[in-house]
């Protein structure tokens, strides 16, 4: 979420707030999974458990009027921007009061009110669109910045190339953030890419500034994001950030993640972004028990919100026929 004025980036208060946001996302994701198993969340859903620090660290570096675009793995981003748990979960449940009226679903969480320009489920598709939002800010001279998230696998698709090139040529105020979680679905990214760092190693091809960072450390993410966002805001053009992270669950609900080498999951569990933040807070003298209390509070909040969303009514069938065109309807002929 946009950091409040009182919180000085890097301060203990600031980090506690970020920790809380990450915990909130984690609780949301766990609830989503549980509802999936209960058959209440349908279709498919891609959790960001383990990748919370990227969303939270970047969001805290943004202004409220900045723009964000994400992928089908986007719950963390919409929540980090400030969307409510109720409306987000209601969307996964296909309810009329969900963020997108039940018409988008888990893969398309969108919240205009939070500058969240959408979650896109065609790999790479959000990247050219992000260029457009950034171009618009430049044209309107608003100094808004656009951040586009993507996965490591997305760096192999044509849209990535075209978007990064255009951003560079037009010096657009956009920051591309690659969440490198080592896998494109079930395939290790190293097996489908000829360079070590899928995004970072390609930045020179676009003459673009780039950083390779620890994506599980919310502080490191925030610092790098702040640098890139400041640069964009100052009119110095786009940058790229490759955040090394890991999804601690399967690719999507159906995936038991059997393709992982032994020990890999455990090693990353030890680097869980929540643990990393806790360790930092401990070092600043925050008691673990205090954080446990915070956890309980957040968990209870999220759980209340989720239970509430479950009680919300189903979509009105008439909603199927609205919003195809700007007149609000779907008529394509007289």
């Amino acid at each position, binding site marked *: 979420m946009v950091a409040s004025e009182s919180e000085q980036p890097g301060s203990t208060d600031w980090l506690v707030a970020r920790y809380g946001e990450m915990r909130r996302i984690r609780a949301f994701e766990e609830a989503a999974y549980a509802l999936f198993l209960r058959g209440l969340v349908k279709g498919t859903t891609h959790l960001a458990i383990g990748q919370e620090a990227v969303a939270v660290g970047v969001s805290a570096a943004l202004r409220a009027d900045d*723009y964000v675009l994400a992928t089908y793995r986007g719950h963390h981003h919409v929540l980090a921007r400030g969307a409510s748990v109720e409306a987000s979960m209601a969307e996964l449940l296909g309810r009329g009061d969900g963020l*997108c*009226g*039940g*018409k*988008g679903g888990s893969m*398309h969480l*969108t*919240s*205009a009110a939070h500058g969240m*320009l*959408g979650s*896109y489920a*065609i790999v790479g*598709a959000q*990247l*050219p*669109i*992000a*260029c*457009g*939002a*950034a*171009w*618009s*800010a430049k*044209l*309107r001279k608003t100094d808004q910045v*656009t951040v586009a998230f993507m996965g490591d696998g997305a760096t192999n698709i*044509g*849209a990535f190339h*075209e*978007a990064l*090139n*255009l951003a560079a*040529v*037009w010096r657009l105020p956009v920051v591309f953030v690659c969440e490198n979680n080592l896998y494109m679905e079930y395939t290790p990214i190293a097996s489908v890419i000829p360079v070590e760092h899928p995004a970072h190693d390609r930045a020179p091809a676009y003459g673009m500034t780039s950083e390779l960072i620890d994506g599980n450390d919310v502080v490191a993410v925030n610092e790098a994001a702040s640098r890139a966002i400041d640069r964009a805001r100052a009119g110095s053009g786009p940058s790229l950030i490759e955040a090394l992270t890991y999804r601690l669950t399967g690719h999507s609900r159906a995936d038991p993640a059997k393709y992982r080498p032994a020990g890999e999951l455990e090693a990353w569990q030890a680097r869980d972004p929540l643990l990393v933040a806790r360790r930092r807070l401990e070092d600043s003298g925050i008691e673990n028990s205090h954080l446990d209390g915070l956890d309980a509070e957040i968990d209870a909040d999220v759980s209340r919100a989720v239970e509430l969303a479950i009680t919300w009514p189903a979509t009105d069938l008439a*909603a199927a026929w*609205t*919003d*195809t*065109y*700007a007149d*609000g309807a*779907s*008529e*394509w*002929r*007289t």
Partner: protein
Amino acid sequence: MITYRAAVAEGIAREMRMDDRVVCLGEDIGAAGGVFKTTEGLFEEFGPERIWDTPISEQAIIGAAIGAAMTGMRPVAEIMFSDFLATCWDQIANEAAKIRYMSAGQFTIPMVVRTANGGWLGFGAQHSQAVENWALAVPGLKVVAPSDPSDVVGLMASAIRCDDPVLFFEHKALFAQKGESPPEGHVVPLGQAAVRRTGDAVTLVALAATVRLAMEAADELARDGIEAEVIDLRCLVPLDATAVLASVRATSRLVIVEENPYAGGWGATVASIVADEAFDHLDAPIKRVAAGNVPLPFAEDLERAVLPSTERVIETVRSILR
């Protein structure tokens, strides 16, 4: 008098003068004035702040237009040849067309994609297709294809003012055609077909370059006392089905003249509407004069053999009047 080609730039310029949010992007559209000279003068009048040359990156062009449209601009993107829509079809069909719906109306996409469409110029299989039917098949898009300079200006006004993504098909074979330059403020609403000629014997439904074929056929048929009504659809979405149905109810006969191949062509959708909703009024089989089911050949005579022709329209009408 103004050419269809110049009418494109004129239509865009009129809107740009009134609305600062209108900006253009595309390959070679700036100082070069576009490979078809359809943006000539815009760069000189509006400058590099509003007329943007792009790399050869069709996905980036459409994506940039979408993102700008979502955030307060009204971009007009050029995809040089409509065949190239295939290189950015995801951005058009899966993104631009669906963002409003997927977000339950949170975002509006007021953008125009202009593109040079169609054959008759010997440009071969990858630079000659009429693909307005591709766009018809994607809910969320509007589809415009003017047949004369006045409509180019009037429909461009409506397209740019429209809050939906509009695919605006400029016909390559019509660029040199001249017509009345429409007065300032000329607007042709989307979804209103034009009856180009009235008649009682048969309804000819046409679009863009096939309007001329239908008109020529009608003139020829009139010599034998056969009066054809010619409807220029102007748009596929919104489709003015009312106009078609009203005409067919009066003439009882329908021949559709379309440039795309028969299989999957837009005429099939028009035919199916009529075969359902005006069935009781039909006195003859519904006929479609469309392109043959082949990629377009390069050689002039072959291309002409494949594309619809005035002669085929005439023969077809005669075949259902016998």
